[in-house]
Structures are given as structure tokens and as C-alpha cells.
């Protein structure tokens, strides 16, 4: 988790400093929706879910073949998370997720690109309690996305991005409490940003 945090903090600066003529880099701001983290039942069903999360993402990529690039994208999302039982929500605190994806990128149409990659996601709760009593967790992540980049300024493009990713979630505390298996979590994010112009 420390490695992931270090990457999250350092990578944007490193990415900018090593930027060269063909290096692509961008920053985006958007929101992320995630499906249920935990489904439980004590006397009736209890669902734990992260709320819509503001998301900040940075990315950098380098050409590896004509029309194809490889890159690294980091994203940080912070929001509340809550449990729902019999239509009653309980605020469980604040949850930050940080992700790193190693992506392959390629063109679709003139201003649209696809990307797909593998990486890691870390859950960083503000307080070690409840399902995070034994701390956060880091899981493998698979993601894909689409970018649309119309020109905006001389050296910058507008970047409209749609992302989807998937991982399986559990925590040490859930394991300790007798939960078995892990929960498939899907996330979808929509964001706007600026990208270095490719012209």
C-alpha cells in the first residue's frame, strides 16, 4: 500500500518532468460510481456501498508502436460510504480509494481513443472501524476506458473520459469475522480534463 501511495503522490510530478515531445500526459476531474462493497445479513439484508466519489486522475503515456501507447494512470477518489438496512442509511465515514493502472492505448476514430489495463486499487478509510477495523486493503484491478479529445487551446486538448474497472473486494476484518470469498465491485467514472495536444 505504501508503494501505491508513493506512486500516487510522485507519479504526476515524475510524469511531467520526463515529458518529451511524444509523451502524452493529462489530468482529469470527474465522479466515480461503485457497486456494493459488502452484502451481509444479520436479521435482514445489509448493503455497504461507497457514495458517488469526486475523482482526480493523472496519466502519462509513451508511444510503443505506430498508433499505440503504453501508459500509467493514477486516480484518487474520496467520498463517504454507508450501509443500508431496510431502506435506512447509516453513514460509516470517509473512504478514499487510490488506483494505478498500467494501460495500453490505441485509436478508435480521429479524436477518440480506447485504453485497457491492469493495476492495483487501495482502500484507505479515514478511520479504522467497522469493516475496516483492521485497516484498508489493496486489490488487483482491471480497467478499460474511452477518451474523446477535441482541441481546446494551442497546446491543450479537452479530454472527456469514460472509465470502467473491476476488482474483488474484501478486508482483513471481514475475513476475521467469518466472511468468505470476496465481492465483485464494478466502478464507472465520467470525467473532464486537459490533455497535452497531440498536434
Amino acid at each position: 500500500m505504501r508503494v501505491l501511495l508513493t506512486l500516487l503522490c510522485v507519479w504526476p510530478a515524475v510524469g511531467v518532468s520526463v515529458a518529451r515531445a511524444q509523451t502524452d500526459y493529462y489530468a482529469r476531474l470527474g465522479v466515480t460510481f461503485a457497486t456494493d462493497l459488502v452484502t451481509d445479513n444479520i436479521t435482514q439484508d445489509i448493503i455497504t456501498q461507497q457514495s458517488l466519489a469526486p475523482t482526480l486522475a493523472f496519466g502519462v503515456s509513451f508511444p510503443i508502436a505506430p498508433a499505440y501507447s503504453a501508459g500509467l494512470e493514477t486516480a484518487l477518489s474520496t467520498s463517504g460510504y454507508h450501509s443500508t438496512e431496510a431502506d435506512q442509511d447509516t453513514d460509516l465515514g470517509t473512504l478514499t480509494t487510490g488506483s494505478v493502472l498500467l494501460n495500453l492505448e490505441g485509436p478508435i476514430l480521429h479524436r477518440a481513443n480506447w485504453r485497457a489495463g491492469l493495476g492495483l486499487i487501495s482502500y484507505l478509510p479515514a478511520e479504522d472501524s467497522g469493516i475496516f477495523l483492521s485497516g484498508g486493503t489493496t486489490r488487483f484491478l482491471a480497467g478499460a476506458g474511452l477518451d474523446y479529445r477535441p482541441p481546446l487551446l494551442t497546446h491543450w486538448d479537452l479530454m472527456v473520459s469514460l472509465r470502467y474497472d473491476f476488482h474483488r473486494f474484501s478486508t482483513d476484518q471481514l475475513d476475521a469475522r467469518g466472511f468468505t470469498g470476496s465481492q465483485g465491485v464494478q466502478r464507472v467514472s465520467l470525467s473532464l480534463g486537459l490533455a497535452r495536444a497531440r498536434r
Partner: protein
Amino acid sequence: MKLSAGLPILGTLLAAAVGLSCADIAAPGRSDVYEWRFISSTDPGTTDTLSFHWPRSMLPVKIWVQDTLDFSNHVTHAIDVWKAAFLYREFDAVLVPDSSEADIIVIADSPAKLPAGAARLERSLAPECEGGTDIVPLPGSRTIQYPVRIFLLPRFDPATPGVSECLRLTATHELGHAMGIFTHSPVATDIMYVDPVVSELSDRDVGTIERAYHVQPNVSVPAH
């Protein structure tokens, strides 16, 4: 869309589909619990089963602790132990400096002094100290005795080995009563056993308090 362009995306979606096809997380059974409700006989052949937990609207529960015998540390430990039993913030408590604003009062006194007509849970009988909790409503009432009173008292000189440990586990035991476990566990390895000898919650204690906080109570806190 270029055909080759879509392959990695299709690959990712395929990986996601494979992941999704795996079974989701499965909750534990939580079947190993003991009776926590107060069951009293009313008329012959009739019983009254009373259950209680602190409503979310009153969290954090406010606890005033008499400043003696390291009670503050013992009760803080007890709060932490019980809070850790929950996954969904069903319970929280804080210490307050003024007894007039407290929901629970912890007093260094013998549980023997009982207001006339009041009901009391069976006393905790650890050898080095004793404890008791006044919470159970009067017969026919549907509100707890408020504020709840917890009594803790060493049976020997407080410096005697074992007394501090006894006060600590008894504080945890009595807070369990004040949270809504109105009866004692029949198993000695549970903190809610009548003569508690363990210092932490067992899986049965955890399962029982979880159940108690997810069952609709029929006893409430009186207007105050």
C-alpha cells in the same frame, strides 16, 4: 472502430465477466448466540420478553464515570471492545464530564443499594470485584431506568493483584448489560457469563450483541 483496437477492451471486459461470475462475498451464519432479552414472568403461564438497544439517534451514548480506581480507563477500554464488535456503527459511546448530561453513570459503589421498586440484572460475581447494572424497566413499563447506573467496586484493597484486571473485565461485562444484553451467558468463555473470567469478547458475545442491535426493541429510553 478498428477491430484490433477493441481487443484489449474486450479482454478487460472478459476478465471482468470472469470475475463477476465468481460467487460474491458470503456472510457468516451468526447462529451461535445466547438469549440476551429479559424474560420475566407476569401472570401464571405468561411471560414478558423485553429487548433494548440504544437508538442511533442517541449515539454516541454519553457515559459519566466517577473519578476513582482508574474507572475512566476501564470504561474507555470497555467502549472500544464493544464498538469493535460492530461492522456498521451500530453503537458508539463517549465519556462526558458532567453526570447531569449522561445516559449511563458508572459509580464506585456496592450494587446492594437499590432504589425501592427498581429491578436489577443479576450481579456479576468475579472474585476480586463486583458489579451490577440497573437498567431493566419496572414490570409493565416499556422504558429503561434512565440514566442507566453501573456499579463497580473492588472486594479487596484496590492495590491487590488482580483487582484492576477484575474491574476492567467487569466494566466490559456491565457495559454489555447497559447496551442491551439483559441476561447472562451460560458459557464461561463469554464476557457475559455471570462470573466473567475472560477479558475480551467471544464470537458468541459478538454475535449476540450484533443480533441485539438488529432486532426491533420493545423497550425504549424515556423522554428526558
